Structure formats: structure tokens, C-alpha cells
């Protein structure tokens, strides 16, 4: 894009935003000459520049608005709400045209004559010689349009502009003319000195600077740490100097990214004004602390949540003037927006003096949605109940209006704010209004964090979600109590669910007696409050957040990593990740705790598993059903043959897989898990066989091929369930899956056009012990029939290109060969009563439900057999 055009768009965009705000101001205070003058100047500049760059359509609209503004200025026309609306409308029109220009680099086609006529009528209505002015204007416009059509040179267009005010408003000829003569440049003249002091810098350059300063800070910290430990003072003075300079440099560079929060607010007065008109309410928006600065990245990200919340306050928070009068309030509702610095964070408050939250409705809705039980509700404070509005699907607005309630709720606002490491809370008093408090970090690059230790590892927890630190020790008031195996903390009058960091991170247990004391980091994240139990708390500090590499990104518990002053790297915990990693656990445990030991029904099927240790200290598990025998053989009996390890076993050579345990023992008994299928036998060497337990198995599809089929919670610890087929190699792969399914070896035909879905579901079915044959279309599936294959069950997608699932199912039913084979239809949604020819309908993406349906049919077949 042309530089000139780009500068025009940037500058005019800024000007228009200011005009919006100033117009609202002017409406409230019509006699403010200063504001009017400012608006006039801005619009005039836009118009002038339009002519200069050659944008006739834009120029015409700007020109017509300027005329009306000119009448305001001359006192000929009164500043009425209607007039203001019209001006704002024309500003919107200009914005639309500008966005068109931005996309295509040319003025979009369109007809603004309606708007222009109304502007002209407005301008004319104020003038004494109304008729004449209008006529003159139209004459002029026509002339100008003709000029534009002849693709007039920019300078000509400009001269047209210059001439115009002379005709339109004959009185202040001299003043206007002299004011306008150097039009585009002249309007900027008073600001020229200011403009020269600032330059536009590409954001990338600033980002690069920040990265480098962060590196510098880290290096400085390392140097400081080194010098602190040595008595050699030679470096101390220059290092101190370096340290100061670095700190200043960091401050200055950070400042380049800082922008006043007012930039995110600039559109709000206009939005509130329009809302007030639309809703028939009187609303006053008070803003304070607009010059509070924060990182532009953060600024961009809070714009939308802020706008949403202001809309909410105006729409749901404030009452109509009549309602307000009835409750003895002034008829104008006030929304107060406030920003301030507080200890490295920005606090933004959005307060309204409206009706407040209807706590009974929230209570009822939370109950209805099954978020809480009645007994839990009874124990909750009002503040806790109010926080339910941050849950999904809990809008308390009675009616969905044009303004809000369009499916974007406070839960989205909350998650957006948490995304940038912020938090949100609210206070509400019924009848007196609601105050939302958003706490956001100044910048996302550097956060203050608490360094905690568990076992011998250190982790950083972002300070923003830490509410308090509690030291729990035996014999004191604060101690960790247990309900069954669940840890809770009695904190003041509440029971706080606890999670042990070592367990969440699946750290191997270390041999020791129960620690006499522990620290509990009380954290708030993901809409819940919980305690994270750690061994020690080191200190707090500013850390530079560095993203983790892509292969570590899939671990939801970490939001990044950082280099500490001593040069070591530690991981930064993501409190939301911790919350979601434990939420199931915490939620059910908290519920259990609240209901005083109520047992949560266990719907998952228990599986017998063999626990063993191999390669690492933490226990691993295999499905017991897959294991044929457990053997302990003398270590000397193992032989190497052809690069593979083998064992003489029942008169044959049995290959021994050592990929799990690493090396075999040198002497003594070597435990071996024996797996077999038909004639084939294979042994897997392990370090130690531990136990046989019953535990719930949770399949992980993402883990397919990684050697793990899922995790099981064994004695409250997540234990990896090993996919033996992965370790015994491809030769044995096919027979192994059959082996698992020995008791229920059934063959399933999976028909779905989506390869993604097939790769997702096939391993799931296989790990559940079924043989799976896949077909991409119904036609292919029918080929299997021609080949004489038979299946115990057919799983078919309903929506498929070619022969759809329904047609496929009816084709099967009428068939002598496959007629008795049950067909499960899979749909994205089973709300509709589309059962038709299917035996069962299952939700496509509900893994548990799908498995349940398959199991149900298979077991009924078994009973029938």
C-alpha cells in the first residue's frame, strides 16, 4: 500500500476515535467551544487529507459533516441529540469507507447521498437563509462531483475544498480562509513540534528489543549471583553499575510497549451513548485513570472483555429511568470505570449503581445446571454464589436483548482474562449495583512468581493467582486433615480441597515419613479455589517467562519456563492447568467432603492390573488379562542370540524384550512377564513385580503408539498402563490385541468417512479388546460382505458421502448374510429421533458412551449365545 494512503488511514482512524468521544462530550455540554473546535479541526483535517490523497467519496461525507459542525461553531445550529447522532452516523460511514480502502486500496462503491442530504438539511435548518444555503450547497456538490468524475487532480480537489467555506459561510471569510489556506499541513501546524519528537516504530523492532533486554537481565542476574558467592570484590563495583544500567534499560524498553489504558476505552463513550439510546436508559459513563499504562499486548487482549462488560453493565446492570425513580435513585445510571496500578498489576474496576445480581436466580440456576448441590449452596457465602456467573451457561439476564446475551457470557470474559494471566472478581449488592474487579499483569513478558519446592525440584507459581500461603504443621491450628484418602485444609470457616503438587506432577514418591510440616499455596484459578501442597517455599521474584518448546507444550500443567538467578531452569506452573488437572478430582472430592463422606458413585469399570517396576522407580501397570504367566528365572540362564535376548522356556526359546527395564540383572532372579498367543510366547523383563490391583482404566487416545494405552489411578496415583504390543514389536502386535480381548473377542466393522475419526476410535475399540476392521465408505464396507466376512457388530457414521449410514443400515437389515448383525449409528448429536434402522444411536464424540453402547450389544449377544 502507498505510504501516503497508509499514513492517512492510521491518522484518520485515530482522529475518528477521538471525534466519537468528543461528540459524546459535546452532547453533554453543548456550549463547550473548546470541544467543538477540536472536533471541527479533526473533521476538517480528515476532509482536507481526503482531497489531497484523492478520495472523493470520503471527502463528500466529511465535507457535509463539517458543514454541520461549522454551523454548530457559528452558533447557528443547536447541538441536539439528533444532530449528534447524525454526525456520529457520518463518522461511521467514513469508517466503513476507510476499512474498504484498507482492504482494496481504493474507495469502495456506494451511495452516500441519503446521508449527505440529511446532513445538508441539518445544516440548512439552522441557517437564516436556509433555502439559499441548501441550493448553494447542492450546486457546489454537484460541481464537485463532476470535478471528481473527471478524475480531478488532487490539488484541484483541494482548491475546491478551500473555496467551499467561503461560499457556505460568507461571514467569517477571512478567518476561515486564513485558517484553512495551508489546509492539510496547516491543521497540523501546532502539533508539528510535538510530532517531530515521536517516530513510528515497527512493533517487531520493539519485540526484538524486549527479548534482548530479557536476555540481558538474565545474564546480569547470573553475574550478581556469582559475585555474591565470591569475596573477590574486583567485579562488584562495575557489576553494580551494569546492574543499574540494565534495570534502567529494562524500564525504558518496557515503556516503549506501554500504552495508556485509555486507548482501550476510547470507543466506550460512544458505545454507551448508543446503548443508552437503544435501551431508553440514561447512562453516564465516568472514566478515571485513563492514563494508566500497560503493555500494548495486554491492552489489545482486554479490549473485548472490557467492552463486553460495559455492555453488560448498561444492559443488565442498570435499570430504566422509571425503575430507578421508583427505588429512589436518580434517573441517570452511572457506570464507573477506573484503572490504577497496584503492586505490579493493573486493577480495572467496572462499577454500576444498578440493580445488582439477583442472587436467588443464580442460586436456582446453579442448582438447575447441576453445578452445585443444595447442601453445598447452603454453606456458600453470597460472594461465592455470585461468582457462579463466571460459569458457562449461567446468564441471569431475563431476556436476550440485541445488546448482550448473545451467547457470550461472563465465562468467556473470565477465560479471556485468565488467558493473559489476569483474574476477575466481583462484588454485588442487590439493589445497589455490581462492581467487577479485573486484575491484570502489566506485561506478559515478566511476571512475579513464587518459587516453591517439592521433593528436590523447584517450580514457579505466578503470583497473581496466589491468594495466600499457609504453613500447616502437626499440633497447630492449621493442619491437613483427611477424609478417607482425600486431603483437606480447615481454613477459617471453610474446607479447602488440597492437591499435592508431587501427585499432580506424578513425581516418584520418595522414602520418608509423612512430612511434619508442609506449605499450602492457596490459589484461585479456573473458577475455583484450592490449595497446592508443596514441601518448601523459597522466595518470590520477577521471572522472565519463556515459552516451552513445542514438544513440551502438550503438558497443560506448565505455562512456560524461566531461568533463575543461579542459572538453572525451572518450569512455571499454569494454575489453570493445575486446576483442570485436578478439577475432576477436586470437584468430586470437595463434594464428598462437603457431603461429609458421601461416596461418589463409580461408573467406570474396574480392571485387574498387574503392577510392576521397570526402568524407572514409579510403578507401571499392564492389564492382568493379557499376562499369561509370571516367571522368575536365574539371571545366568538368559542368552544372547542373534542380537536378541532369549530364554530357554519349556523346551523352546522364548524371546525376551528388554526395552522396558533396560538391562537385565547380572545375577539372582530376573522377573519376566510372559505373554503368549497360540504357539508364540514372548517374555518381557521387568525390574520387580509389585502387586495385582483393581483400578479404573482411562484410555488416552493421544498416547496411541507411544507405548502407553492409558492411565489408571492406582492408590490415588496415576499409573501408566503399558501397551505391551508396542514393546513386543509389530510381529506380535496383531495377536496381542486379540489376547487382551480373549474373554470377549469380537470383531467390529467401523465405517466412517473421516480418517481422523477412524484413527481416534479404532485404537479405543482395540484397547477395549475388540478386533476392528475399518472402511472409509459404506460401499467399501459392503465389499467385505461380498468377501464373505462377518462381524459381530457394525459401527457406522450416519452422515457419509455416497451411500449414507441410514441407507447402509437398511441394506444390511434386508441381507441374509449380515441381517442379524447389530448396527450402531454414530451421529454428532443424537437429540433428534433418528433411530430408524439402527439398533442403537451413539454420540460420535462421546468415547465413554460409544464404548458403553458397544459393550451393551456385545454382552447381550453373549447372553443370547
Amino acid at each position, binding site marked *: 500500500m502507498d505510504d501516503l494512503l497508509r499514513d492517512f488511514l492510521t491518522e484518520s482512524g485515530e482522529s475518528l476515535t477521538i471525534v466519537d468521544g468528543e461528540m459524546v462530550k459535546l452532547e453533554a455540554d453543548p456550549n463547550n467551544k473548546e470541544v467543538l473546535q477540536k472536533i471541527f479541526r479533526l473533521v476538517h483535517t480528515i476532509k482536507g487529507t481526503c482531497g489531497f490523497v484523492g478520495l472523493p467519496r470520503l471527502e463528500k461525507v466529511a465535507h457535509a459533516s463539517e458543514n454541520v459542525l461549522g454551523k454548530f461553531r457559528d452558533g447557528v445550529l443547536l447541538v441536539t441529540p439528533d444532530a449528534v447522532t447524525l454526525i456520529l452516523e457520518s463518522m461511521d460511514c467514513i469508517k466503513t469507507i476507510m476499512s474498504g480502502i484498507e482492504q482494496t486500496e481504493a474507495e469502495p462503491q456506494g451511495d452516500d447521498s441519503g446521508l449527505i442530504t440529511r446532513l445538508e438539511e441539518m445544516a440548512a435548518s439552522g441557517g437564516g437563509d436556509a433555502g439559499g444555503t441548501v441550493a448553494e450547497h447542492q450546486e457546489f456538490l454537484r460541481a464537485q462531483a463532476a470535478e471528481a468524475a473527471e478524475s480531478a487532480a488532487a490539488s484541484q480537489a483541494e482548491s475546491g475544498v478551500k473555496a467551499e467555506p467561503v461560499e457556505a459561510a460568507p461571514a467569517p471569510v477571512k478567518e476561515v480562509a486564513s485558517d484553512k489556506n495551508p489546509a492539510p499541513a496547516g491543521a497540523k501546524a501546532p502539533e508539528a513540534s510535538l510530532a517531530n519528537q515521536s517516530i513510528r516504530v515497527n512493533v517487531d523492532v520493539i519485540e526484538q528489543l524486549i527479548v534482548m533486554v530479557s536476555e540481558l537481565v538474565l545474564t546480569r542476574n547470573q553475574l550478581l549471583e556469582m559475585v555474591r558467592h565470591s569475596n573477590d570484590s574486583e567485579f562488584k563495583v562495575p557489576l553494580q553499575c551494569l546492574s543499574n544500567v540494565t534495570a534502567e534499560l529494562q524500564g525504558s524498553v518496557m515503556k516503549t510497549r506501554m500504552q495508556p489504558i485509555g486507548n482501550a476505552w476510547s470507543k466506550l463513550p460512544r458505545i454507551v451513548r448508543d446503548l443508552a439510546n437503544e435501551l431508553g436508559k440514561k447512562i453516564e459513563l465516568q472514566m478515571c485513570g485513563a492514563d494508566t499504562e500497560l503493555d500494548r499486548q495486554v491492552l489489545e487482549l482486554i479490549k473485548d472483555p472490557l467492552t463486553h462488560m460495559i455492555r453488560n453493565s448498561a444492559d443488565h446492570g442498570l435499570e430504566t429511568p422509571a425503575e430507578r425513580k421508583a427505588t429512589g435513585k436518580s434517573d441517570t445510571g452511572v457506570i464507573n470505570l477506573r484503572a490504577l496500578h497496584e503492586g505490579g498489576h493493573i486493577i480495572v474496576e467496572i462499577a454500576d449503581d444498578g440493580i445488582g445480581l439477583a442472587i436467588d436466580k443464580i442460586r436456582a440456576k446453579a442448582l438447575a445446571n447441576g453445578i452445585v448441590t443444595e447442601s453445598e449452596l447452603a454453606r456458600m457465602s453470597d460472594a461465592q454464589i455470585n461468582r457462579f456467573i463466571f460459569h458457562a451457561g449461567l446468564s441471569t439476564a431475563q431476556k436476550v436483548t440485541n445488546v448482550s446475551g448473545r451467547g457470550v457470557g461472563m465465562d468467556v470474559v473470565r477465560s479471556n482474562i485468565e488467558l493473559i494471566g489476569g483474574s476477575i472478581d466481583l462484588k454485588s449488592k442487590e439493589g445497589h449495583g455490581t462492581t467487577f474487579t479485573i486484575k491484570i499483569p502489566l506485561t506478559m513478558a515478566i511476571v512475579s512468581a513464587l518459587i516453591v519446592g517439592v521433593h528436590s525440584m523447584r517450580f514457579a507459581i505466578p503470583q497473581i493467582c496466589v491468594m495466600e500461603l499457609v504453613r500447616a504443621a502437626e499440633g497447630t491450628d492449621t493442619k491437613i486433615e483427611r477424609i478417607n484418602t482425600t486431603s483437606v485444609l480447615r481454613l477459617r470457616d471453610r474446607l479447602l480441597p488440597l492437591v499435592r503438587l508431587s501427585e499432580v506432577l*506424578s513425581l516418584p514418591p520418595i522414602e520418608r515419613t509423612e512430612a511434619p510440616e508442609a506449605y499450602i499455596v492457596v490459589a484461585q484459578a479456573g473458577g475455583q479455589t484450592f490449595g497446592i501442597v508443596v514441601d518448601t517455599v523459597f522466595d518470590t521474584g520477577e521471572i522472565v517467562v519463556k515459552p516451552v518448546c513445542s514438544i513440551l507444550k502438550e503438558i497443560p500443567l506448565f505455562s512456560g*519456563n524461566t531461568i533463575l538467578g543461579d542459572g538453572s531452569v525451572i518450569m512455571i506452573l499454569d494454575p489453570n492447568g493445575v486446576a483442570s488437572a485436578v478439577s475432576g478430582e477436586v470437584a468430586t472430592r470437595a463434594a464428598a467432603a462437603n457431603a461429609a463422606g458421601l461416596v461418589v458413585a463409580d461408573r467406570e469399570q474396574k480392571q485387574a492390573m498387574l503392577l510392576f517396576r521397570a526402568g524407572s522407580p514409579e510403578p507401571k501397570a499392564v492389564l492382568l488379562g493379557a499376562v499369561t504367566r509370571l516367571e522368575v528365572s536365574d539371571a545366568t540362564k538368559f542368552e544372547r542370540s542373534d542380537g536378541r535376548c532369549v530364554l530357554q522356556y519349556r523346551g523352546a526359546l522364548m524371546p525376551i524384550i528388554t526395552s522396558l527395564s533396560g538391562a537385565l540383572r547380572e545375577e539372582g532372579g530376573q522377573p519376566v512377564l510372559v505373554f503368549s498367543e497360540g504357539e508364540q510366547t514372548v517374555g518381557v523383563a521387568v525390574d520387580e513385580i509389585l502387586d495385582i490391583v483393581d483400578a479404573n482404566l482411562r484410555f488416552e487416545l493421544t498416547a496411541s503408539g507411544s507405548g502407553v494405552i492409558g492411565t489408571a489411578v492406582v492408590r490415588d496415583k496415576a499409573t501408566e498402563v503399558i501397551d505391551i504390543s508396542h514393546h513386543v514389536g509389530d510381529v506380535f502386535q496383531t495377536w496381542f490385541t486379540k489376547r487382551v480381548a480373549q474373554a470377549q473377542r469380537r470383531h467390529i466393522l467401523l465405517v466412517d468417512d473421516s480418517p481422523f475419526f477412524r484413527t481416534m476410535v479404532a485404537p479405543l475399540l482395540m484397547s477395549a479388546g475388540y478386533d476392528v476392521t475399518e472402511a472409509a465408505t459404506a460401499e467399501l464396507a459392503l465389499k467385505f460382505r461380498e468377501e464373505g466376512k462377518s462381524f459381530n457388530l457394525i459401527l457406522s457414521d450416519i452422515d457419509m458421502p455416497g451411500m449414507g449410514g441410514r441407507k447402509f443400515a437398511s441394506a444390511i437389515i434386508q441381507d441374509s448374510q449380515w441381517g442379524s448383525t447389530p448396527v450402531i449409528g454414530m451421529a454428532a448429536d443424537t437429540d433428534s429421533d433418528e433411530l430408524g434402522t439402527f439398533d442403537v444411536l451413539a454420540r460420535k464424540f462421546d468415547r465413554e458412551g460409544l464404548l458403553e453402547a458397544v459393550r451393551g450389544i456385545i454382552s447381550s449377544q453373549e447372553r443370547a449365545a
Partner: protein
Amino acid sequence: MSRTSNNSNEFVTVAIGPQLFGIPIGLVNDIFRPERLTSVPLSHPDIAGVLNLRGRIVTMIDCRRRLGIVRGPEERDFMAVGVEKDGDHYGLLFDRAGEVLRFQPEAHEPTPVNLDPHWRTVSKGVFRLETGLLVLLDVGVLLDFSRKAAA
């Protein structure tokens, strides 16, 4: 697919036990002795941890595990080769790192078909040396954790 061109037939040789491997020198940022390795809980078993290499955070890959080589008897004395992939820094842990060798294209052999399937995917070919055979590693495949294990 891509034939090794003239300026890229220099390789850093590394070894696990007696087995030699080669990594194209163009991919290697540094060779360093890993210090202060921080293990990352819940990470892939082949990830040895993260460490700070001159202000950069480097994710360390245990190539012995990655290549499925049974733990050797001797105490491991790591050397690491620093490489970059998609803007992330990785360190590949080997037992030893040796000199830089220049190979004649004539000495390049395709990967033997009877090689372990997993090795076959990470090998870009074999070079005949006087002292033994050197497997040329495909660093991209080695670092591709989304890839399913060779089946």
C-alpha cells in the same frame, strides 16, 4: 530424497557406546557438556530435561532412549549437540562427540533394509569408515514427537 551437496557433506560424529552417528554440520549450533539439567515431570520419557545454555533454554533429548539402545554398562558421560527446530532449541544427548569428518559421496550407502524399523526411519544412510560404520541421523525425524513409533 535430497542428495547431500558438496558444501554439506561435513558431519559432526557422535557416538552411543560403540555405534557412531553423524549429524550434518549445518544443523549443529553447538557441542556442549550438559550441566544442571532440570527434569520435566510428565514429559515424554525420551526428554531428559531442560537446561540453560548461555541464556537460552534448551530441551534435552536422551538419544539413547530415543534410539531404543539398551543402557550400557559404563557410567554415562554425556555430550550434547545443540540443534534448532521450528525456532526451538534442542540438545541431543550422546555418550561422546568426536571430530568433524568430511565424507566422499562415494562412501555413502543407503540405509540397509534389514535395519531395525525404528532406526530405519531416523537414518538417512550409512557411511563406511575405516573404523566402522556411521549412521547418518535425520534430526527432523528424531525430534518429531508427534510421529507414531515405527510400526
